[in-house]
């Protein structure tokens, strides 16, 4: 009998990077469809520009550093996620700058797929937000729903990308969209974040295909809900406006930038929720979700260290052992 000695892991799975990324892409399709329905064809063009330039930057950079040119769908996922947190009117070249930052600076410079410590789409969004603030906070009227008919709201500058909750940005006298419209996404905002309905469809698909665990999104969203409830704010608005669901489902569940263990994922979600609440209530920034996820991305290393599971039968080493 031939014995094969090989390093762990020994458990095989049919999951590959291609498969997982493909499933994430499929899960993002409903939100893309809704964004085209709400904002028109430019939403589709912007998404295609982002996905295409992310793929091009990835292959160019890998050629530049003479690494194998394995192309998997992950840059397309990054590009689409980035497009989802941009406003529909953003000039294409700014989106391309964002793709460069996401793929080259945040992902490839730190070692490529699985090595980046921060979510590329989120950092790219923050850089664009700080660089082109006026373009990044220009919100158009949606094509559908009551806001389209409203005469008064020339600039429903209400909702920010992965960002401010509507109620915090609404001018006095502007009408708050109804819950159903918020849920379906018929209000101003970034491309993919407005329609919680479509995002939750994607969430269900990802959970059913076992791509993500439910812990992080649930912990994240319920922390925000509980916080809003305690402070007496409008819970529905806090959950359904801004980029909470997009961030919680697609960005706080990224494999390489979030904790591994279930406890870690839970801490990550709660932490994101608390930071979001703090930013929404106490800061004058029209930002919340993206900074929350970025800060927790940075803390992921420590969360992982803290929640490292104890091997069966292992005895915890005393502190003095380190000094020997």
């Amino acid at each position, binding site marked *: 009998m031939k014995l094969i000695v090989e390093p762990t892991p020994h458990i095989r799975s049919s999951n590959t990077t291609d498969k997982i990324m493909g499933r994430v892409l499929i899960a993002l399709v409903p939100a893309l469809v809704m964004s085209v329905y709400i904002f028109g064809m430019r939403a589709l063009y912007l998404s295609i520009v982002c996905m295409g330039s992310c793929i091009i930057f990835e292959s160019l950079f890998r050629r530049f550093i003479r690494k194998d040119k394995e192309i998997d769908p992950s840059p397309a996922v990054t590009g689409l996620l980035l497009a989802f947190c941009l406003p529909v009117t953003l000039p294409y*070249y*700014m989106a391309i700058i964002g793709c460069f930052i996401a793929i080259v*600076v945040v992902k490839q410079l730190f070692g490529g797929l699985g090595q980046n410590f921060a979510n590329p789409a989120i950092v790219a969004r923050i*850089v664009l937000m*700080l*660089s*082109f603030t006026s*373009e990044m906070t220009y919100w158009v009227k949606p094509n559908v729903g009551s806001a389209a008919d409203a005469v008064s709201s020339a600039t429903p500058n209400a909702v920010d990308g992965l960002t401010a909750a509507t109620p915090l940005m609404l001018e006095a006298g502007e009408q708050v969209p109804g819950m159903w419209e918020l849920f379906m996404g018929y209000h101003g905002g970034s491309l993919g974040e407005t329609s919680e309905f479509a995002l939750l469809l994607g969430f269900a698909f990802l959970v059913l295909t076992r791509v993500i665990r439910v812990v992080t999104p649930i912990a994240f969203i319920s922390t925000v809900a509980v916080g809003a409830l305690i402070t007496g704010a409008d819970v529905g608005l806090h959950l359904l406006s801004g980029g909470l669901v997009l961030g919680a489902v697609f960005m706080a569940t990224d494999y390489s930038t979030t904790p591994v263990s279930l406890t870690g994922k839970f801490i990550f979600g709660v932490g994101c929720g608390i930071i979001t609440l703090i930013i929404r209530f106490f800061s004058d920034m029209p930002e919340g979700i993206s900074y929350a996820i970025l800060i927790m991305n940075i803390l992921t290393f420590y969360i992982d260290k803290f929640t490292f599971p104890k091997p069966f039968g292992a005895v915890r080493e005393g502190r003095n052992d380190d000094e020997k």
Partner: protein
Amino acid sequence: MSKKVKILTKGIIKENPVFFTLLGMCPTLALSSSAQNAVGLGIATLIVLICSNVIISLLKKLIPAQVRLPCYITIIAGFTTFITLLLKAFLPDLYNALGIFLSLIACNCIIFARVEVFASKNGVLDSALDGLGMGLGFTLALFIMGTIREILGAGTWFGLQLPQLTEPMTIFIMPAGGFFALGFVIAAVNKFMKKRPHNISCDNCPHKAMCRRGEDD
């Protein structure tokens, strides 16, 4: 002669205080948001560096080893005050723009490093050349950083409006953009020099005594 030239030029590129020894990060990051301020601070530092190097090289026999650091800092702070007052009198705009960082030249670690590792062990002319080279290297680094950040972040260069192809990326004149720009410039310089930062000689390193690499050489 070639030795003197070498002392002068090594600070400019080969052992550039910003790009290779990563000294003086604080003024580099804080003041490189515009090319004008960057060059202004670079030249002020250059003058203080040359003067302190010369004086300390002259006094190196007189200064007792035990109290050398207080003596050095007194001399450096004296020249810094001199530069500060000159700028306040003749270039008040630059004085206001540089703000606290002008006084902080007194505790700039580039000057300390050069005084400690070079001027206190070498002759007057060599020390002056070393100060000139390191000061020029610092000014050059600040100039490069300031140029990149000002052109990308504000669309201007030395306050002149440049033809705008795109919106300026405001992040480059923010602190975060400073770190981005510094990282990329260092990467580019290393690539260009075909050299890794840890290959520089240990002779001038302030940590030589403590560092294990110093013992190997």
